[in-house]
């Protein structure tokens, strides 16, 4: 790049020199150096240019290339870091999403388990209530049957007591004898 600048300066100086010569060299001739001076300047400039081109520019280019390489490396590192960060971000997002899914699943499972336990408790309570109801009904029915049987027994006993009293008071000697005779006849028929 620097070489290019020097070349442009030299060309501009040569162009002015040619222009002044073409215009007759009258008025502007005093502005132009004498040829020897010009030649020496050119030689000096060439030498300087050579040294600059030979050592300064490569060093400068080398420095610039190193700088460029460093910047490119840093850019690459930054790019890698960015890619890595994006990857980490993606992983993190995936993990967060996974965690959310897991949390949702745990919540759903807990809700299902809760519903199952609730259903089980309700079913068990209903079963026990039904058993209690059935047992109570059975006991009521049994108690009613016992009461009816007891009442029937009492009525029967009372009726028989009354009947026995009536029989006792109405059985005269002839009837008693008739009863005994009838039973003796029945016994006589038993073999």
């Amino acid at each position, binding site marked *: 790049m620097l070489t290019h600048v020097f070349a442009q300066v030299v060309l501009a100086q040569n162009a002015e020199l040619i222009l002044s010569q073409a215009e007759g060299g009258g008025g502007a001739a005093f502005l132009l150096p004498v040829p020897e001076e010009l030649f020496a300047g050119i030689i000096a400039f060439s030498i300087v240019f050579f040294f600059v081109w030979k050592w300064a520019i490569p060093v400068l280019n080398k420095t610039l290339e190193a700088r460029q390489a460093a910047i490119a490396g840093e850019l690459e590192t930054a790019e890698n870091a960015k890619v890595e960060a994006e990857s980490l971000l993606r992983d993190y997002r995936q993990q967060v999403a996974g965690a959310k899914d897991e949390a949702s699943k745990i919540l759903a499972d807990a809700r299902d388990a809760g519903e199952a336990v609730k259903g089980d408790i309700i079913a068990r309570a209903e079963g026990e209530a039904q058993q209690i109801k059935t047992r109570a009904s059975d006991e009521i029915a049994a108690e009613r049957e016992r009461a009816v049987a007891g009442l*029937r027994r009492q009525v029967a006993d009372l009726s028989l007591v009354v009947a026995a009293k009536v029989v006792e008071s109405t059985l005269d000697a002839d009837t008693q004898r008739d009863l005994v005779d009838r039973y003796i006849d029945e016994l006589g028929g038993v073999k």
Partner: protein
Amino acid sequence: MDDATAQASRIDGYAAALLDVARAEGDTGGLTDEIYRAGHALAGNSELIDVLADARVPAERKQGIIDDLLGKRASRVTVAAINFVVAAGQARHLSDIATRLADLAAEVEGEVVAEVRAPMELDAEQIERLTAALSSATGRRVQVKVVIDPTVLGGLVAKVGDTVLDGSVQNRFDELREQWG
């Protein structure tokens, strides 16, 4: 020997002694029957037995009661036999001794006793027919001993050994109670 066995042996002894007395008097059948009926008649009254078994009641008082109850209805020997048992402190076993006495007397004759409970006395013709009917029903020669028992109400109950033939009105009532209960 336990108490029950000792008591059974005691009852056998008293019954055998009374049988010997009846034999000695020459009227085994009549006296045995009379003692049997008297023993069961007295035993049927639990309050009377309580008095006769009470050690605090003087023996003379017990004898007076028995004389009052049996004196005009039973023979002298029967009254003496009952007094003997009561005085020996066996009033509560009077019916058992009377039953055993009848069994021993019947065994001598090759017969078994048929204890017949009825609410009234049976006449000779009824006893004869009943003896024949029971002998026919059990296949054994029976000797009928009648015990008056008002709880029978009507009809009769015959017991021969372990066999009970119940034709009483009370039994009909019991059967009705079973059916209704």
